[in-house]
Structure formats: structure tokens, C-alpha cells
């Protein structure tokens, strides 16, 4: 990176932190600290919700996902507007009516204290670990790309977030997220334009679309009904709706965003804004990934996108074999380049037979090319034990660093850092708030004044921030911990959503029935997950996405059955 890039990167990050601290300097009470003073406008709520969900991995992984598998991932987001409407109609009015600070407060009003504590505790465990990952996941990629020490990168991201989140609470988080979203969307739109401009002379935007389409990267929607297909219209409109309901409706890091609204209408409109803009936003990010794929049809791509790992293999006995593989990859690329040019020529002739034969040839060579890439990964795994062989998170930033002009590289790194910070800030803000409201104020000290709880909130937010940095720094020691944490979310969230669904829609079910129903449902989810790992789940063979729907339905069913038995 050049000096200008470093100035752009740090200038952006420091400005955002300073802006957040300055805009929230008059936060003097709990309402200001946990709900932004309850005067946030709808568009700021919408931006805040989007910035919270858009983590660094959104911008690192999503283009890489499109590069490898095309645009199909967007279907996952089709369920989001549906979930937004359900939350706006059923969840929000009750949260507002009861004037709650956290979603879990409502559960005590509706059921009892133990149900509230159960949901709040699950949130703290899941989000506390999740905040560590929100820092760690981009850190490991950024430290590799920038040549930094991993721990220093963790501490840098964590400290920047802690500065404004601890001092200004929700107000600071909401204010900074406005600027962070501007940086993120501005940076990505500029990157998208520059990717298209970077295509070789003579290859227009239409040609790029034709190549991407004929190589299977533009299959945006798939209406086929197949449970094994992770991303289809149907999984987006069913399983994903449950996932988004549990994330946006019951996770305090999101609930806190829209509870800061000036009024119920402002909050509802903020949710609708998220529902309207999320699909187009994901389309843009995925489309950039597809355009990077097209760029690498005309320019030699590396056989493996993580440079640091590649340098490590050059130091091992596998170096010569790896270089041979790279030469093979280059010769296949030259062959493919000719075939791609032939495909473009065939498309211009409009002759279906010619197009089909050119398309078949291109895809045949692409398969060869993919096989060499897979072989390279196997070799890396053997040569550098413990190396991450999935390089999709490195594809986009490798393109940025090698192709985009000075200044823009710094801006794109600022996008990634901003995304990491905006998500972490919401998480710490919610963790501090939930600890104060649901545990400290409820169980430890009930008669404190506003200032006392404000100080405690700041203290708890700081403690969670330090814990997140410690977790992020420990993650590299436990290879499978990330999957474990993501798994915790998939295993526990269904039950929490089930409790909320019973609370909102089944008024006759009381506290003990839902508590026992939730525990039974949780045990069934554990059992089904265990059977899935063993490969003996039979009709219950399913991906994580479906746990949400199943767990939620089970809580309702079990609670109902317990209620019927008790009524008799």
C-alpha cells in the first residue's frame, strides 16, 4: 500500500471514531446511552440496521462466493423483507407499548423471570463469543494482506470500537453507522465501476455479462424444489424467514437499533428501508464478485489467492511441484482465454449451435482450471499443515490490491475496517445494555439511580469489549472454534425464536408450559444435530438453516401439548 492509501485508511477510521465521540458527548442518561435518546430518524435506523448486519465478512466473503458459485446466494435474502414486515406488525408495537430497553424484558412481562433470564443468557453467550469472531474473522485476512501482526490487528479494531461505544453508547453507534454505511456503499460502488473499467479494451459490459452468464455465474434465481439445494427461491422464502426473524426480532444487537426510534412509525419505516434496500445491496456486492471473475478470464489469476500461504509453500519441499502446477494453470488459462474470445465472437453471430459449442468448450476448460486449483489446495494442505485452504475471502481484496488505483485501495480497506467496527459496536452496545438491564438491575441492585446504571452500562460495555479482543486473540489457537460459535447460534436461536413466537401469537400458553417446551425443543435440536453429524438423521437430514424453522415449530407444539395436558 502507498502512503496515500495509508492516509485514506487511517484518515477515514480516525474521523469516524472522532465523529462518534463528538456527536454523543452529551449522553448523560440511560435513555441516551441505550436508546440514543429515543429520537433517531427512520433513515438513520435503517442505515444502523444495515450497518450492524454488514460485517467485514460480508464484503470479504460475498464477492468470493460469487466468484466461485455465482449469484445464487442472493436468494437467501428474499426472506428478509417478509421478516421485516412480520416484526413491524407483531413485534414492534409490543416492544414500544411496554417501553422496554431489551427484547428479553418483554418475556418477563409475558411469562416470568426465568424465561427472561434464559433468553438473555443465551444472547450473552452467543453474542459475546460472536463479537470476538466479528473482530477475528477480518483480522486474520487483513493482517495477512497488510503484513501486520494478528494480535495487533485485533487490538486495533477492538480499541477503535471501544473508544466511541463506551463513551457514547447507542447514540455514538448510530451516528458512526451513518458515516460507516456511506464509506461502505461509496467504496463498493466505486470498486464496482472500476472492475468494469478494468476489463481489457474491446471487452464491453455486455460481453462481460455474456461470458459470466454462459459460465453459469448469473443464475440469480432457482425455482426448483430441492431441500439439499442451499440457495433457492424456496429456502429463501421459508427457512431464511425464520433465521431473519430470530436475528432481527430477538437478537438485542438488532432490536436495540430500532428501539432507538423517535416513534413507532419511525422504527417501522427503518425496518421497511432495510427490507427494501438489502436485496439490491447484496446484488451489487455479488455482482462485483462476478465481474472480478470475468476480469480473471482475461487476466492471469493466481492459482491460490492467499499470498502469505503461497509464500510459505515456496519454503517447503513442495515448492517445485507447486511451481509446476502454477505453470500448468497458466497454460490452461491461455487456452481458456482463446476459448472465451471465441465464445464472444460466437455470441455476436447469434448462431445457437456455434454458441453452444463455444460455451461447452469454455466450461470444459474452466473445469480443468478448477481441478488444478483444487489440486493446489490439496498440496498446500500437505505442505503447510493448518493453513486455511479456502481462499475465497482473499479473492476480492487481492484484486483490489493488484488492480485498483492508489487511494482507492486505502478506501476499500477502510470499507472492510468500517464494516468490522459497525457490527462490533452494535454487539458491544447490546451486550453492555443487556447485562445492565436484564441481570445487574434485575438481580443485583434494583434501587440505583439513573447515573449509577449509566456508569455500570459503560463498565459492562468496556468489559465485553476487552473480552471480545481476548476471544479474537485466542481464536487462532482453536481452529474449529469459529465453526463452534456459529453452531451455537444455529442450535440455540431456534428455541429463543420459538419462545418469542409463543409469546406474541399464543396468548393462552403460560410461563411453565413455554419453559418446559423450550427445553424439550432444545433437546430435540441437539439430537437432530447429533444424528446429522453421524449421517443417520434419515428424514431429518437438514442444513443449519432449517434448524430455525424446526426449533421454532417444536417450541410451539411442545408448549401446546404441555398446556393441554395441564388443563386436563
Amino acid at each position, binding site marked *: 500500500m502507498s502512503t496515500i492509501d495509508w492516509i485514506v485508511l487511517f484518515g477515514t477510521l480516525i474521523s469516524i471514531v472522532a465523529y462518534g465521540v463528538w456527536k454523543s458527548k452529551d449522553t448523560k442518561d440511560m*435513555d441516551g446511552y441505550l*436508546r440514543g435518546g*429515543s429520537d433517531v430518524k*427512520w433513515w438513520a435506523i435503517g442505515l444502523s440496521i444495515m450497518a450492524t448486519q454488514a460485517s467485514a465478512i460480508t464484503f470479504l466473503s460475498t464477492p468470493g462466493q460469487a466468484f466461485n458459485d455465482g449469484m445464487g446466494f*442472493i436468494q437467501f435474502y*428474499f426472506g428478509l*423483507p*417478509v421478516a*421485516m*414486515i412480520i416484526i*413491524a*406488525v407483531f413485534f414492534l*408495537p409490543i416492544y*414500544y*407499548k411496554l*417501553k422496554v*430497553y431489551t427484547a428479553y424484558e418483554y418475556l418477563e412481562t409475558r411469562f416470568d423471570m426465568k424465561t427472561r433470564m434464559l433468553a438473555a443468557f443465551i444472547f450473552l453467550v452467543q453474542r459475546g463469543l460472536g463479537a470476538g469472531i466479528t473482530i477475528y474473522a477480518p483480522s486474520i485476512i487483513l493482517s495477512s494482506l497488510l503484513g501486520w501482526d494478528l494480535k495487533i490487528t485485533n487490538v486495533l479494531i477492538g480499541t477503535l470500537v471501544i473508544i466511541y461505544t463506551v463513551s457514547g453508547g447507542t447514540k455514538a453507534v448510530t451516528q458512526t453507522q451513518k458515516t460507516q454505511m456511506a464509506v461502505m456503499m461509496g467504496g463498493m460502488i466505486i470498486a464496482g465501476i472500476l472492475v468494469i473499467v478494468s476489463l481489457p479494451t474491446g471487452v464491453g459490459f455486455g460481453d462481460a*455479462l*455474456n461470458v*459470466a*452468464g*454462459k459460465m*453459469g455465474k*448469473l*443464475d*440469480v*434465481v432457482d*425455482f426448483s424444489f430441492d431441500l439439499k439445494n442451499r440457495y433457492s*427461491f424456496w429456502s429463501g422464502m421459508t427457512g431464511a424467514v425464520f433465521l431473519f426473524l430470530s436475528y432481527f426480532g430477538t437478537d438485542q444487537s438488532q432490536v436495540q437499533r430500532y428501539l432507538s*426510534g*423517535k*416513534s*413507532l*412509525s419511525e422504527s*417501522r*419505516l427503518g425496518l*421497511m428501508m432495510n*427490507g*427494501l434496500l438489502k*436485496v*439490491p445491496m447484496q446484488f451489487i456486492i455479488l455482482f462485483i464478485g462476478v465481474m472480478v471473475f470475468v476480469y480473471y478470464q482475461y487476466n492471469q489469476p493466481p492459482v491460490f489467492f492467499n499470498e502469505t500461504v503461497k509464500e510459505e509453500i515456496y519454503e517447503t519441499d513442495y515448492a517445485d511441484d507447486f511451481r509446476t502446477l502454477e505453470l500448468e494453470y497458466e497454460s490452461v488459462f491461455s487456452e481458456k482465454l482463446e476459448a472465451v474470445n471465441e465464445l464472444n465472437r460466437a455470441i455476436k453471430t447469434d448462431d445457437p449451435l456455434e454458441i453452444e459449442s463455444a460455451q461447452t468448450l469454455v466450461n470444459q476448460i474452466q473445469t480443468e482450471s478448477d481441478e488444478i486449483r483444487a489440486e493446489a489446495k490439496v498440496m498446500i494442505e500437505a505442505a503447510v499443515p493448518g493453513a486455511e485452504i479456502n481462499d475465497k475471502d482473499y479473492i476480492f481484496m487481492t484484486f483490489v490490491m493488484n488492480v485498483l488505483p492508489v487511494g482507492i485501495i486505502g478506501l476499500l480497506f477502510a470499507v472492510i475496517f468500517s464494516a468490522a467496527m459497525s457490527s462490533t459496536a452494535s454487539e458491544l452496545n447490546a451486550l453492555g445494555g443487556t447485562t445492565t438491564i436484564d441481570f445487574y438491575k434485575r438481580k443485583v441492585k434494583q434501587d440505583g439511580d439513573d447515573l449509577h446504571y449509566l456508569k455500570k452500562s459503560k463498565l459492562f460495555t468496556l468489559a465485553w469489549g476487552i473480552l471480545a479482543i481476548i476471544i479474537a486473540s485466542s481464536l487462532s489457537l482453536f481452529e474449529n472454534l469459529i465453526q463452534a460459535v456459529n453452531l451455537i447460534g444455529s442450535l440455540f436461536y431456534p428455541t429463543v425464536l420459538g419462545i418469542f413466537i409463543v409469546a406474541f401469537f399464543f396468548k393462552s400458553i403460560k410461563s411453565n408450559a413455554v419453559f418446559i417446551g423450550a427445553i424439550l425443543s432444545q433437546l430435540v435440536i441437539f439430537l437432530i444435530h447429533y444424528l446429522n453429524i453421524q449421517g443417520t438423521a434419515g428424514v431429518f437430514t437438514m442444513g443449519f438453516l432449517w434448524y430455525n424453522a424446526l426449533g421454532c415449530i417444536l417450541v410451539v407444539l411442545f408448549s401446546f401439548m404441555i398446556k393441554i395436558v395441564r388443563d386436563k
Partner: protein
Amino acid sequence: QNTNEVNDKPPFFSSWPKVYMLVMGVLAVLIFLFYLFTEHYS
């Protein structure tokens, strides 16, 4: 206590169901355009 109002009509529209219909309408149009896009380029 929090001061936000609960007894409040959406801005720009006469009722909330119309806003929800607009959101679902936009989603339906997007999915239809994606379908055309997929068919055209595959």
C-alpha cells in the same frame, strides 16, 4: 422512562398495510427481474 410515542399513521402513505404491500411488491418485481436476467444470460 423512555419517551417515544406508541400512538402514531405512516409518513407518505395513508396506512401501514399499503407500505407493506409496496415492500412486497418491490420484492416481487425484483425477483421477476432476476428471473428474466437469469433466463436471458444462461
